[in-house]
């Protein structure tokens, strides 16, 4: 019995140990502890800001870190960066490394690779790293602006001095007009014109009042119940009534004309018959004329 229990305990311990070890092993593997790591060498003129453990970024993703920073015999800063195998494909011999010092945030090393088909960087190669200092760039740009501001400030001072002089001059003038024109006589005559303009304006006002009153009367005379418009309206109504009567008359005339036209046709026919009769009588007369002896010949002659 005790043997069985001991066996079970032992089995449990072993199983547990295996599981834990597997888990730990799995974790370690995932962490890349057993992954191969490449060490690349970079060179810089200055190590200012470079620290161990500084991340190496490619397209914004951390692919490695700075392992070591040291100075060589020539005074050049040698930087060792460690890149795991899975990320080493981004590092090519023509990749550009830059040390970025942003205004806000920690400095980083960033990698840019234009040509992914070029040969991978060897651990023996040494690439130069470029330093991008944002703060210095800003300071460089600010300098000319500051110069301009200084000059403007100087000009403002000069202008202020002149304005002070002008103000002094204007304060001695009696009006804005005199300030503008700088001729007291013309200013005086201008004031006099303005006074007469006042008189003219008041007379104009009176005239307008009269015109207004006249317009009222005219309004009544035209638009009032006994006004011209009303009268015209009445006349028009009367005219319309008369025209309606005339219409009836015209219709009657039309009827008469039509009857007359019919009669005219008869008249034409009658006239035609009369003409025929007259011609027959004339021919008869001519024949009788011919029969009468010794009658003068009737022929067309010159007078």
């Amino acid at each position, binding site marked *: 019995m005790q043997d069985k229990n001991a066996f079970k305990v032992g089995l449990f311990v072993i199983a547990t140990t295996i599981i834990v070890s597997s888990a730990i092993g799995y974790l370690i593997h995932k962490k890349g502890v057993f992954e191969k790591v490449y060490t690349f060498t970079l060179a810089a003129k200055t190590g200012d800001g470079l620290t161990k453990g500084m991340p190496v970024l490619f397209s914004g993703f951390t692919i490695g870190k700075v392992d070591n920073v040291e100075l060589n015999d020539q005074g050049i800063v040698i930087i060792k960066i460690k890149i795991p195998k899975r990320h080493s494909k981004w590092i090519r011999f023509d990749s550009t490394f830059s040390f970025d010092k942003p205004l806000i945030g920690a400095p980083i090393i960033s990698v840019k690779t234009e040509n992914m088909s070029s040969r991978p960087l060897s651990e023996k190669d040494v690439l130069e790293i470029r330093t991008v200092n944002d703060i210095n760039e800003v300071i460089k740009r600010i300098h000319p602006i500051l110069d301009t501001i200084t000059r403007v400030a100087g000009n403002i001072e000069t202008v202020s001095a002149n304005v002070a002089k002008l103000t002094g001059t204007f304060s001695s003038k009696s009006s804005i007009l005199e300030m503008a024109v700088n001729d007291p006589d013309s200013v005086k005559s201008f004031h006099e014109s303005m006074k007469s303009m006042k008189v003219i304006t008041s007379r104009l006002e009176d005239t307008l009042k009269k015109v207004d009153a006249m317009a009222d009367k005219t309004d009544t005379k035209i638009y009032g119940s006994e006004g011209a418009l009303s009268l015209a309206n009445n006349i028009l109504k009367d005219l319309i009534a008369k025209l309606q009567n005339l219409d009836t008359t015209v219709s009657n005339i039309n009827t008469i004309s039509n009857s007359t036209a019919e009669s005219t046709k008869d008249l034409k026919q009658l006239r035609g018959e009369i003409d025929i009769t007259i011609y027959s009588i004339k021919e008869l007369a*001519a024949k009788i004329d011919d029969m009468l002896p010794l009658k003068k010949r009737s022929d067309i002659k010159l007078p």
Partner: protein
Amino acid sequence: MKKNLFAAILFFIAVLCAGCGMKTSLPSWRHEGFAQLENYKKNFLAGREQVAESHYRKALEEVKRSGDIITISKIYLTKTALHVASLRQTTNDDYLILEAIERDNENQNFYIFINGDFSRVNQNLMPPRYREFLKAGLTGDLSFINKALAEIDDPLSKLIAIGIIVNKRIYNERTLETAITTASLNGWHKPLLAYLAKLQAFYESNNQKDKAELTMRRLKAISN
């Protein structure tokens, strides 16, 4: 008695036959044309212009049915002659158009005559009634002219002759009075008024104010 009656009847029949034999029948358009032309003359001279114009058109209508250019020309010349007789202006375009189509010597001669170009007139082609007047007109002697005018029997021909000579400004009081008398006797109102007006102007131009006044009054009295 019976014999005389029988003889008279025979004579009448003979005359009738003779008359029938002498006369040849004229075409109806000539009869009609002549009648209308006569009516035109009568009414024109009487001053009834509208009626006259109607007869004139009918006369032309009748004669145009025949297409006889020479006779149609005579009608146009008759109208011109009547206007000359009444001292009225008129154009000769109608006649001239026909003259270009078919010229007749007698018509052309008459046309020259009524336009007063006596030197170009062929006396032999003129109707006899105008020949003495033509001779007088060639001389230009007013007394000779007046004498020749008085000898023209036909009143219309006389008036035409006077019209021609007045247009040539060869006239005096006697010439105008002859015209007035002729028109008056025949009741030709239109030429009467025209010659009275001419006489009045004649008196005024000769400073005979009384006669001019009298003529004017006469004119007013007979005007419509």
